[in-house]
């Protein structure tokens, strides 16, 4: 059961990474030990089939990417452990990902930080939490009947998405 839940967590993170945080992943790869980068191509599909539990891997975690780079063996593949990627500023906020290396392969990618630049947003995350676009815009957008946006004037209306929907409504 334990490895199953770890697998699901890994899968979820990987899916989000693939959709929204490509910039972060790119930086992560470059921050990892050289030999680890070559394993990244097969990383997500591997899931946690090796049975790595998150608790054992986090005990080996390092604080910064520079530490990770210096402690990793140079040629014989990355040492098992958890590596932090660089902090990346994206339009969705500040993002940092963490890679779990096991047996020379990335077995999990975890988002460790997704916050507004303003640290206060972390403290109030029970009320509002940062989120990425892929979490809120879904395939259902094809069926959108109305659009809520900043006030448009009569003139701006003609160029708005709402006017396109309204025009489509006359024929549909």
């Amino acid at each position, binding site marked *: 059961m334990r490895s199953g839940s770890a697998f699901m967590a890994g899968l979820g993170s990987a899916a989000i990474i693939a959709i929204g945080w490509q910039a972060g992943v790119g930086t992560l790869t470059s921050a990892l030990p050289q030999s680890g980068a070559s394993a990244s191509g097969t990383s997500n599909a591997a899931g946690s089939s090796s049975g790595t539990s998150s608790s054992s891997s986090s005990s080996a975690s390092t604080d910064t990417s520079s530490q990770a780079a210096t402690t990793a063996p140079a040629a014989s593949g990355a040492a098992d452990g958890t590596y932090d990627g660089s902090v990346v500023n994206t339009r969705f906020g500040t993002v940092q990902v963490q890679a779990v290396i096991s047996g020379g392969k990335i077995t999990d990618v975890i988002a460790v930080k997704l916050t507004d630049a303003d640290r206060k947003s972390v403290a109030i995350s029970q009320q509002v939490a940062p989120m990425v676009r892929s979490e809120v815009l879904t395939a259902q957008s094809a069926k959108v009947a109305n659009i*809520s946006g900043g006030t448009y004037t009569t003139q701006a209306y003609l160029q708005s998405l709402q006017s396109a929907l309204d025009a489509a409504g006359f024929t549909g």
Partner: protein
Amino acid sequence: MSVHTFDTMGTMVSIRIADTEEGVPRQSIAAINEIEHECARLNETFSLYLKDSEISQIARGELALADSSELMRTEYARALDWREKTDGAFTPHRPDGVIDLSGTIKAVAIDTAAQTLIGSGFRNFSVNVGGDLTTFGNQSSEETGWITGILDPLDRSSLLAALRLTPDFPAVATSGSAERGEHIWLRPETTKAFVQASVIASDIITADVLATAIISGGQATLDQITQNFAVAVMTVAPDGALQANAKFQELVAR
């Protein structure tokens, strides 16, 4: 689905009726006419850009508030009540002291239009006035509720989110600091924390006022509102960073 649009208060009204029973087209024309009339009355009473409106007379000191119409006093009292509830982040007073009720009247118009449609027997409709809207029933026999997009303020040709508005949370309002909303003034102690705030609530007036208050009051007001009101909220920061509460994520159309 029939769509009716008309111009009022410097913006556009877009009403969609999804009822399919016989006789709907004829009934809808009568109801839309009545709604146009109601909007015109609100515009003539509350528009500061109309020289002869009642609120312009009050602004010039020609008419005392105590002598104004019952509609004026009712709406002023409503706006003052919202000022209390938002600790002043929403206010019906311009910095120069002039009473400006444009922050609530558009929502009042939406609410009035919805009541007119219900009174006329319609059970599946949406009323959208300049990007703020309320809904009733379902948009089609295949969809529960009304799927509503939230505009991306940084790219107005795309959407940030798609929500499903249902009877518990039928209304959404979006305010932006870059929009032409004269009723939004930043308090001196706050910065431009958000370029856009969307609030989904059980009624359009609550949604509209709270969206305005978040833009005006910033993060502190956002925190206060999510603690004190049963609403769904999403904000957009100037760099595009999004924040939303759990209720908002529940409403995302899946």
